[in-house]
Every structure is written in C-alpha cells, then in structure tokens.
C-alpha cells in the first residue's frame, strides 16, 4: 500500500501554530477525510475537523486547505507524497482544522 505524509495544523486560537506530521498507508482512492477519521482512531482522538456525512459530499462541512487550496476533505484523494492541511484562513478558528462555518443567524452567540 502507498504511504502519505500528512502535515496537519494543530492548536486553537491564540496558540502558537504547529504542524503535526502523520505517516499512514492508504488504499488507492481513499480520501483525506478517510485519513483524518482513521488518525483519530489510531493516533489522536483529539484531532479536530468537521464532517457530518461520510464521503458523500452532501454536508459540505469538511472544507479545509490542502497545500494552500480550498478542498472538501471527502473528495480530495490521498497521494503518496507530503500533503499539508490547514484550516480555512478566512474563518474563525475553533481548533486544529475546524473553523466556524455556520451561517451567522444559526449560531448561539
């Protein structure tokens, strides 16, 4: 199986940003979301990102930056190379890859 190296931005607002590095084997065709969900099980359950549907591209929650470009993690495929994941830059950071994307009139505050 090929191996990918994910550089994942970690931390919340006000924390010094860092990128944690995870290497993982993948089945060709798997998505970035597949990898993130697997990393929570195998490595770090605190890794924060957003998703509701499972690889169907229906909920549109899993938007993030892959190598600086906005993607849906569920439709971006894993590749056997270094891949950098960052939260959306124009949204308020919650933690790690999760940002505030709810419409303003559907938020608690």
């Amino acid at each position: 199986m090929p191996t990918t190296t994910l550089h994942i931005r970690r931390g919340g607002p006000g924390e010094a940003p860092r990128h944690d590095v995870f290497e993982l084997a993948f089945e060709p065709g798997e998505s970035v979301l597949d990898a993130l969900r697997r990393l929570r099980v195998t490595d770090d359950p605190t890794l924060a990102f957003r998703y509701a549907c499972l690889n169907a591209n229906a909920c549109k929650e899993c938007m993030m930056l892959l190598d600086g470009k906005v993607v849906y993690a569920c439709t971006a495929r894993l590749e056997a190379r270094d891949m950098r994941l960052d939260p959306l830059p124009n949204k308020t950071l919650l933690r790690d890859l999760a940002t505030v994307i709810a419409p303003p009139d559907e938020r608690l505050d």
Partner: protein
Amino acid sequence: MYAAIEAVRQGAASVLLLDRSLIGRGGATVMAQMTVAAAVGPGDDWRHHLADTLTAGRGLCDPALAALLCEVGAECILEMDRWKVGWARAGNGFASVQAPGHDRARCVYVDFLSTGPAVSKALRAQVQRVGDAIRRVGEVLVTDLVVQDGRVTGAVALHVASGAALTVAAPATIIATGGLTRLYARNSASANMSGDGYALALRAGATLLDMEFVQFFPIGHLAPRLIGMDPIMWDPFRYKLGGRLLNGAMQEFVGRWGGDAENGTYSTTRDLATYAITKEVEAGRGSPSGGAWLSFTHVPAAELRAAFGPVIDRLAANGIDLTRDCIEVSPIAHYHMGGVRVDTAMRTDVPGLLCAGEAVGGANGANRLSGNAITEALAFGRLAGAEAARQVAEGAPAFDVAAARPALALLAAEGPAVNTAALVARLQHIMAADVGPFRTAEGLARAAAALATLRAEVGEDPPGTPGLAHDLARQDWLDLRQMLLVAESVVVAATARTESRGAHQREDFPEMSAAWERNLPLRLRAGVPELA
C-alpha cells in the same frame, strides 16, 4: 424542520430548532438520494400505499401510525411541491418510479441523486420564510432531557463550537434525531446518527419499541473506493435499468435464496436481497471484497448516460466505466424501524415529550418499505409540531434548573484520557460482527459481553476538561454514553425475539412465528434497558 414550521402555523410563538451539526446538513434526509413514496399519482390512494406498507412490515406495523404516514405524508408531498422542492414532472403530474414492495409507481423524486438534499433545502428555505418565530441554533448536542415530576421541561446540551454547557427550557420538546446507523461502521447515513433520541427518551422514562429491527440496505457500495458519493446511490439506477446482481462467478443467485428470479427487473425486497447476498458470500461465492457484483454492462452506453446523467462523469472521475466495469456491493446499515413509542399525536409516554421521523417506532413494523423514510419524516414532523403547539397553549410547569443539575454535572466532569474514537470503532465492530442482519443466541451473548466490557472502559466521566472548542474526543464520549445504551437495547430485543421476521433474522430460529406477531416494548430500569 417540518415540525417547527407546523408548530408556528398552529400558533406557537417561539420555536427553538436545535441541531447537533449544521442545520439541515447532517442526519439522514440530506443523504437520501433516492425516492419518496406517496400516493399522489392519478388513480392512487393512500390506502393502497398503506396496504403495501403493512405487508412490508410483516404484521408488526402500528396500523394507525402507518395510516398517518401514508395519508398525511401525501399531503406533505403536495405541500413540499408548493414550497418548490422541485419534484420531477411527467405530463401533468409527478414523475414516479415503482420501487420494490409497491403495487404501482408511487415514488417521486427530484433528480438523479438530489432528492434528499432538495428536501432539506426546501425545508430550510421554508423555515427561514416563517421568520423570527423559529430560532435556529446549530452545533448544539443535547445530552439529557430535564424531567420534573415526570414531565419533560427542557434539556441540557453541549455547545460544540465553544464547549459550553447549556440549559434549554421548553414547555414541549420534540425528538427528531433520526436513527442509530452510526452503531455500524458501514452505514449510509451521516456520522451524527448515534441513536441520541432513543437514549434521551429512555433516560427520560419513555418506552422504546422494536429495537431489534435494523434495516440493512442490500446494495451499499463496497468497492472500488468511491468518494464524493452516497454509498446507496446504486439503488435508483437498479430500478430504472435493472442492474444485475451476480456472485463471484458472475452468476445470478438471488433466486437460489428464496427471492423471485429477477428477469432483468428489480423486484426483490430489501431483507431478501440482504439475505441472498450474505448467504452467497458465506457459501464462498462472494465477490473479491466480500459482497456481490452489480452489473449494468448489458445496458447500452446511451441508455446508461440517459439514466445516470452527470453521475456518469462523477463515476468516471472515480475510474468506473459502467459499460465495462461491474462494481461490488454489500449490505450496509441504512435505517431503524424501531424507536420511541408514540400515540397518533406523536406523544411519548412522558408528558411534554414528543417524537417525529425515524426516531418514532412502530410505523414500519419489521421492514420499511422503500421510499417511506422521508414521507415519515415529513408526516410525523407535521403531526408532532401541531401537537406541541397545542400543548404549549395549554401551559406547562416552569423550568427548574435544580432538575438539570445531574446532567450539568456530567458536562462539567473531568475524566481520565481515553481514546474515545477507538472505542466508537470497537462498538461499531461489535455490532457489525454479531448484531448485523443475521443473529444467533451465541453471537448476541458475545455482543452483550463485549458491550459490558466496553462500558467499563468508557467509564463514568468524559475525558479531559470541559469548555474546549470542537472537542471531538469529549463529544465521542458523550455519544458513546448514548450509543452503548442504544446498542444494549438492540441486543436485548434481538435476543428476546426467537424468530425471524423482516429485518431481524435469527439463524437459530429461521421461521417466522405467529406467537411473535407482537411488538417488543423496552424501558430503562436502574439504568439498564429491559423488556417492559
């Protein structure tokens, strides 16, 4: 959302619409890419739809709830049309297809794979048109209902985005949380369907029904890896084009396991198709990834393009050419027939607590007819909303925060670090291994023991500290608390039902028994789900 709209229409001045994810984007509706059953065609009548629903339910449907599903559901479909959902047209009416188990073409749709998302979107737009009477707040995970003197008066919740604990006061509360598909690793709904509503209702003192009936969808996508698509997307195309189910040796096999020979049509009900695929795999004749082949190679390319439309291009992006390639499919957890026991006004056994949608038990009996899930969500939402408005007008006791203290204490607790994501995966593995479509006493006992071990590892308090934004580890713990209770409920009910009926198949009791033509109610006693 239908409940909120109806509550305001019936006079409620203030509705709070909470969703644990973003509103209208999680759950099952948005994933339902197929069709919606409703007697809205010329010559059809909701009584015909009811007859088919009762037949599919194998004697266990609550006929009054099933009748409401069919009658009110048809009205909702027409109302959704006025709300511009965009049902596909044919001639002067709606385009429709005949799904398995229906006596005629009765399943309306929007377009290709957009039916569920279109329903969600139309409801969202209608909720917005209602205006300020409905306050929408997403990312609120309700962890407990608040009960005062036997009546539900509100809820305690986690605000996911901030990690703050919340209390909600409500004279009437409607559970519309959907089913329990997340108990299974392979499932066709969203990741947020953890059976929350069942656990909330149980803890509040309500009764659940028929928890053993988990519907497995026979042809969930298995291989090759497919992304950006719904795993049950193949089904509507099977209706339209008569996709062939083949074993590892590329032979048709459904007839061998008691189904009718399909002869190029799609006539096998879901439980039979699930049985046939599973048995063929057990007999060593499965496809390479452990399922069956689904083939459209007999269909000319132009016809494929006409039926699949833009989906053909999305498949091509996944490296699949249907004129040449078969794909592999296998059963996948799809829906739950059981749920909270309600009366015809959607009232649970607990005053102040109502229920709507898939979370309701009893309407679909032992097996749900294709297309009934969205119909049920709309119809029961409308009924529950109307009843909630009536109850609010009657008045209710004031919310007392003292009654919320135990639930708030849980959200403030600081437990030891534990890999909750791995524990969720283990629960899903336990359920898939021994509480799938085919059960035995031995397997169910194994599952019960494994769940007990898991419960001990999960512990009494959520890991880490409260107040962290988007804390998935802690959120998974809160979900595990609910998932364990719901999984235990399924195991208790599946163990008790020593017969095979619809979606509940006992390999050690393969026959359907007239003595078991009854529902299994279940309640919580001293924290343990027990048959009532």
